[in-house]
């Protein structure tokens, strides 16, 4: 354990990150799609001399500025804060690889931000031609931020053979562009662009639904219908792009999905499939609502409907992000680093030398490290402290004790022997182990593994005994 593990109760640090990420994806993709929607709508309005459209667009652009500027930008920073907390080791790898990728993204972001503000503040104050140009410039730079960040995001799923070939040799920087334009780069870029375009429609429905359909029926009809059309490209192209994406996903990820499809409705292996199903169903419902409710009856299209569409889009986004996350398991960086920050190349070393041998995160009372004072704790408590660190370092990035994906309940009906069996299976990590598809190998020496078993026992044990175990958490709970 190199960095300390950020131990968030109940939801786990993963969901702090996940929650922020889902929200950010919704807003940031809107920032891209909406950025194209605005100037194209403005262009149409000007060509057709529709001043009433311009009024609507002005309002929409204020909403757009605050939503993307405050919530988009800050949640973007938030993702960064939370990945650093939830997985410092992986964040460090990404930053060492892609620091200038991020720096380039930042350049586009700077232009994006500036043009967004100018666009909003200069309605009617500068010539229409220049205003439109600024709108297009905004659209271009915000899409370019996606072009950059997509390289880093897809790298995590599929770093590609070239980068993996040099990983650990010290010359990673020489293959920057291979890592960037990795196997899932292009399908993912197309997918994300399509999502951005459809989110432009979804959010536009929210603002246009507020137009009064009785006094401004014509205006509402034309603008709602025009907005709905923004969903068409996605629904035509999404399946193709998605298929391409899956085709590029590594075999193991697809296996997980096939397994899911063949065992639908049962077993523990349906995560990916379930998530994809939710996403597909939510998207289909959006299409149905958009056509039957909004397109066919634009005048009576109420904000409540628009918010339902928005909610469905949230569900689809959440499910898709969840699926992407599951596809990547047990890795955080495909074939290179497991979700718990252990590099694939380090497994043997940790098995040989021990996982906790060199860590500075042993509790002061634990005797195993020459750098720490040996406390007067009874043997059993020392074992539990070690076991807790094993849990934090190797399991807690995916499991909590008693909240999300709780080991307490996953192990509920198991006695010590049966827990030891599972733990040994994770440690041996045989080719045919079913856990390989989503869990990393458990590393460490025998005493460390036994300490984990003892610790896990305390999680599934019935009510805690009066003298609570001397774990780091227990001490705080007191």
């Amino acid at each position, binding site marked *: 354990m190199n960095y*300390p593990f950020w131990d*968030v109760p109940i939801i786990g640090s993963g969901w702090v990150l996940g929650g922020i990420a889902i929200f950010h994806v919704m807003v940031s993709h809107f920032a891209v799609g909406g950025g194209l929607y605005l100037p194209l709508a403005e262009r149409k309005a000007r060509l057709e001399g529709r001043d009433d459209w311009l009024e609507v667009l002005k309002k929409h652009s204020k909403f757009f500025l605050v939503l993307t500027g405050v919530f988009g930008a800050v949640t973007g920073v938030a993702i960064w804060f939370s990945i650093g907390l939830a997985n410092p080791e992986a964040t460090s790898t990404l*930053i*060492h690889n892609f620091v*200038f990728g991020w*720096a*380039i993204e*930042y*350049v586009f972001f700077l232009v994006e931000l500036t043009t967004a503000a100018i666009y909003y503040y200069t309605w009617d104050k500068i010539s229409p031609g220049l205003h439109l140009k600024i709108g297009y410039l905004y659209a271009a730079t915000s899409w370019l931020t996606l072009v950059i960040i997509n390289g880093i995001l897809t790298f995590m799923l599929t770093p590609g053979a070239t980068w993996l070939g040099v990983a650990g040799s010290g010359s990673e920087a*020489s293959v920057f562009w291979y890592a960037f334009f990795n196997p899932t780069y292009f399908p993912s870029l197309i997918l994300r662009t399509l999502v951005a375009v459809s989110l432009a429609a979804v959010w536009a429905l929210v603002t246009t639904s507020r137009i009064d359909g009785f006094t401004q029926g014509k205006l509402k009809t034309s603008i709602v219908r025009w907005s709905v059309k923004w969903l068409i490209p996605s629904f035509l192209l999404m399946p193709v792009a998605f298929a391409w994406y899956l085709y590029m996903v590594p075999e193991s990820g697809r296996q997980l999905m096939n397994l899911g499809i063949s065992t639908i409705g049962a077993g523990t292996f349906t995560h990916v499939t379930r998530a994809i199903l939710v996403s597909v169903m939510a998207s289909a419902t959006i299409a149905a609502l958009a056509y039957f409710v909004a397109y066919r009856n634009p005048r009576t299209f109420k904000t409540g409907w628009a918010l339902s569409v928005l909610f469905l889009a949230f569900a689809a986004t959440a499910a898709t992000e969840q699926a992407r996350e599951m596809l990547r398991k047990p890795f955080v960086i495909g074939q290179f680093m497991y979700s718990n920050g252990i590099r694939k190349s380090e497994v043997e070393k940790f098995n040989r030398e021990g996982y906790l041998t060199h860590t500075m995160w042993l509790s002061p009372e634990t005797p195993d490290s020459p750098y720490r004072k040996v406390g007067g704790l009874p043997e059993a408590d020392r074992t539990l402290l070690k076991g807790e660190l094993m849990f934090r370092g190797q399991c807690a990035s995916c499991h909590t004790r008693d909240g999300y994906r709780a080991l307490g309940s996953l192990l509920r009906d198991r006695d010590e022997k049966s827990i030891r069996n599972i733990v040994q299976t994770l440690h041996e990590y045989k080719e045919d182990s079913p856990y390989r598809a989503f869990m990393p190998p458990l590393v460490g020496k025998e005493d460390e593994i036994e300490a984990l078993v003892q610790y896990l026992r305390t999680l599934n044990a019935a009510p805690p005994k009066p003298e609570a175990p001397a774990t780091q958490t227990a001490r705080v709970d007191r």
Partner: protein
Amino acid sequence: MSLLYLPNVDPIPLPAPVWLFKVLHIATLMLHFVAVQLILGGLTLATVWNLFGKSGSPMAGASDSVVKKLPTVMTYVINFGVPPLLFSQVLYGQTLYTSSVVIGFYWILVIFLLIAGYYLLYRAGDRADAGRSWWWMGLVSLVLLAYVARIYATNMTLMLHPERWLALYVESGGFGGVMPKVDPTTLPRFLFMTVGALGFGGIAAALLGQYFTHTDDVKRFLTRTGSLLGAVFLAVQMLCGYWVYAAQPAVVKEGFWNSPIGYYGAILWAVFSVAALASIAAGGLIKGSLSRLLVSVAGLAAVLMTAGAVLARDAIRDLSLLAVGFDVWNRTVVANWSVVGIFLVLFVAALVLIAVLLVAVNRSMKEVKNQNA
């Protein structure tokens, strides 16, 4: 002490030399600090003026005028905060990631404080537009943002002290909800940025008075009061700056004057602090176009003063880390210059593009105004 207290360095070498990261880090951090001082100083002044200024008075007018600018300033606080965080993770990741996790709850709290504080600025601006009082919103926002500054000052101190991490981590059960005991350097550091910000805030208010169209009495109020407060608080900030230095452990103080970054940084900071102080004081006393010039000079001097402070601060950090066995210059570098080059070219192109845009927008605004007139 030895490296036993630090996590291992990332095995992937740095993709560019340390000096380049240092330059980028220091330059962008300076911009961040300028923006932070503007937001904290500007918001404090505006809130106090809004509380005490009677409706229709120049004081109230000045407060509304300042607060309407603050959402945009806040955008740049965040925007200029991003690159130094990126570069400091590259240079100091081993200690920065760790100290952040050790106070993880507070570190993530920054985000929520930020969203609430930022949003309140927009709301306060809307109320100012509607001619209503908003000081309590400003006050809440100020408290939230000052707490963000407190968390930053704490983490930037904690990252220098690996020997404190384990106890804090254990005490908080790994969740990072325990604040470290205050270090003798944290308070002066925090005051330097927060109370000191009033110096910069005062200068900014005077600049606002000089360069934006206002009624005459608002203009006079902004210039006079802004200059006065600017001068007073620049002096206070200088005292805080000395206090930051004096509170350092002996080993840092000894190394400081032998480190070129510290030495020249401190001189730059001191010289331009005095220059800013003198010109803002003079600018407030003198009337007419000379006043405008002096206030502008003070603004420029304040930026350079901030640059000096950032340099001196950088030396203090590196010396403190060296004392625990972390040498920031000692890193393996395998550069990929093509990527660095693309970044630099794009960066310059973006700045040019923004400049061209602003000029074009300005010109077009004038044309449209003339047409309408």
